[in-house]
């Protein structure tokens, strides 16, 4: 239970830090980025909009900072993240939620696939360590240490442009299907998602695989695994004894991995011109759309927090030692 409370505290503090950082950073940064932005915008948008942006970032307001902070929190609580500059007059939240599902779909599928595949391969490679399969480890190292978007680029070059197996950009075939709950659209989405998904899964799978293999090797030197052999259990069951324990640190590392995976996925979206938050972020950054940047940062952080909370629950469920107060 203690672990659980601790995790909760960490999540809450992370949320608070994220929220506060988005408030403070634009006000603190050297060179006054907001001034720059306003200079850039003057003449392009209405004076009211400029006033709204100024107000959002505390320019020319007479309120003390703490009151601004309070207003900011209240707005946030109501889901009000301000108005996007790039997509004006749409609000930041509507812009983000319009794209979020694409990103969540990609990230969610990639996380589940890479975790399951990587862990399963890791079990196998750990069990057969010292055999020829060890040769896959450097290959996995190559995949693991290659940034997602670099692999994505390589995959696009080979499979989309050379071999024409997959479409090279977009998230569905906009010329033939229209979004909605129809089979043609879903099929198109599935087809377009394969290559981006493959580059995320291939890269992150190797990390899971190497981690699991090493944990498997370490666990196999534990007495209880030898004990399982001594009991005359079939190989499959012995492997399970080891794997069931070796997977725990993997799940403990889920938080870190999800952060990396989400970051990577955003960039992969960019490589494949895939619809989603990644594209928004890049646009927002190049247009100095600070409200949108902040909104994306908040939404992404909260996504990561929620996903790692799922991981934490899973961990507690899988490891009985975290559930009891008794110390051994």
């Amino acid at each position, binding site marked *: 239970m203690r672990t659980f409370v601790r995790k909760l505290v960490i999540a809450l503090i992370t949320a608070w830090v994220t929220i506060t950082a988005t408030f403070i950073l634009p006000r603190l940064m050297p060179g006054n980025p907001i001034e720059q932005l306003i200079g850039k915008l003057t003449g392009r948008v209405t004076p009211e909009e400029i006033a709204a942006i100024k107000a959002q970032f505390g320019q020319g307001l007479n309120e003390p900072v703490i009151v601004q902070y309070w207003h900011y929190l209240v707005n946030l609580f109501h889901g009000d993240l301000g108005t996007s500059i790039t997509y004006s007059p749409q609000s930041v939240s509507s812009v983000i939620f319009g794209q979020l599902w694409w990103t969540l779909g990609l990230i969610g599928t990639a996380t589940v696939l890479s975790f399951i595949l990587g862990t399963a391969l890791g079990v196998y490679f750990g069990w057969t360590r010292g055999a020829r399969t060890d040769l896959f480890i450097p290959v996995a190292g190559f995949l693991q240490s290659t940034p997602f978007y670099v692999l994505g680029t390589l995959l696009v070059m080979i499979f989309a442009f050379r071999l024409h197996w997959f479409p090279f950009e977009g998230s569905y075939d906009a010329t033939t299907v229209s979004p909605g709950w129809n089979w043609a659209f879903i099929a198109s989405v599935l087809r377009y998602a394969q290559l981006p998904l493959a580059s995320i899964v291939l890269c992150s799978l190797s990390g899971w695989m190497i981690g699991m293999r090493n944990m498997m090797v370490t666990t196999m030197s534990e*007495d*209880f695994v030898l*004990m399982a*052999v001594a009991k*005359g259990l079939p190989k499959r069951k012995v492997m399970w004894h080891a794997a*069931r324990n070796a997977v725990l640190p993997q799940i403990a590392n889920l938080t870190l991995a999800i952060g990396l995976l989400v970051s990577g996925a955003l960039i992969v979206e960019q490589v494949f011109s895939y619809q989603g938050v990644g594209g928004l972020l890049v646009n927002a950054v190049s247009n100095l759309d600070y409200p949108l940047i902040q909104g994306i940062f908040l939404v992404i952080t909260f996504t990561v927090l929620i996903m790692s909370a799922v991981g934490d629950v899973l961990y507690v469920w899988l490891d009985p030692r975290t559930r*009891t107060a008794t110390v051994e």
Partner: protein
Amino acid sequence: MTTSSNPVLEVSHFNVDYGVGAAAVRAVDNVTFTLERAHVLGVAGESGSGKSTLAYGLTRLLRAPGIITGGDVHLHLGTDADARRMDLLAASEAELRAIRWKHISVVMQSALNALNPVRKIGKEFDEVLKTHNRSMSKSARKDRARELLGLVNLTPDRLERYPHELSGGQRQRVMIAMALALQPELVIMDEPTTALDVVTQREIVAELQKLRQELGFALIFITHDLSLLVELADEIMVMYAGRIVERAPALELYRGPRHPYTLGLMGSFPPLHGERKVMTGIPGSPPNLKDLPGGCAFHPRCPYAMERCTLEDPMLSPIEDGQRTVACWLHDPSVSAAVPVELRRKDAALAGEAG
């Protein structure tokens, strides 16, 4: 003792190395013994003398870089009618799997590490019963598990516990109960009580004593505490640097050790009964297997070492009409020097004389 002929385990000239080629060290060297059905063999020796290596080597459970480099190990399975003699060193993986736990079970030194931390105790029992007896029903397995816990004085509610929720003594009892689950002919226990406090140690040894009379399994009990063995074991084997240096019926060995190493080993521990003797211990430290001294491996630490001890390695030879065996030149008929009195004692009455 070796003349009766109902053995359960026959080991001859058994060798185990760690590593191969030039880097190899011999951790078990030319070990030969026979274990009779329903007998208890105690194995004692300092840390690093090769006790665990022997135990795991016999069962083919030893991990890399351990390699069995010679000898024979035969296990006698079944009762007299359909008895079968199985060559453990020639057995295939499947054959080994079939006899493991059903005929040989093991109890490891640390019960905490030997139990899967994320499994309930009941599940472990269930799994082992199910694997070896497909026809047993779920409720029958559960009843059997309860019964087994009862044997070691644990309440059945422990089945619902995880290992970390039990005390060290309880865990070790669980391991013992599990080892007896399939009524094997042979149980090997590697220092099952070393991690426990003295009181629990005694309790468990007493329980074992009772159980083996009830159930009649043969037991190899490994420890570095000789005094534990006196009550439990029929015979005691003392190991040094991977070899057997002395073997004798338990009480005789305890009352009258013949090898200086055994004597030292006993001096290292307070005796079970009677007044405390001076704890002399053994001078020096256990040998480096990579660089064993020539001749008798024990001679650098032996207060009685003679010139011959530095030159020739004594063989394990019978003494006192074949009642016991010892590997020491002091007892060789061709050696003229008198055997020191403390290595000649016959019974407890003489103990006082020794000091």
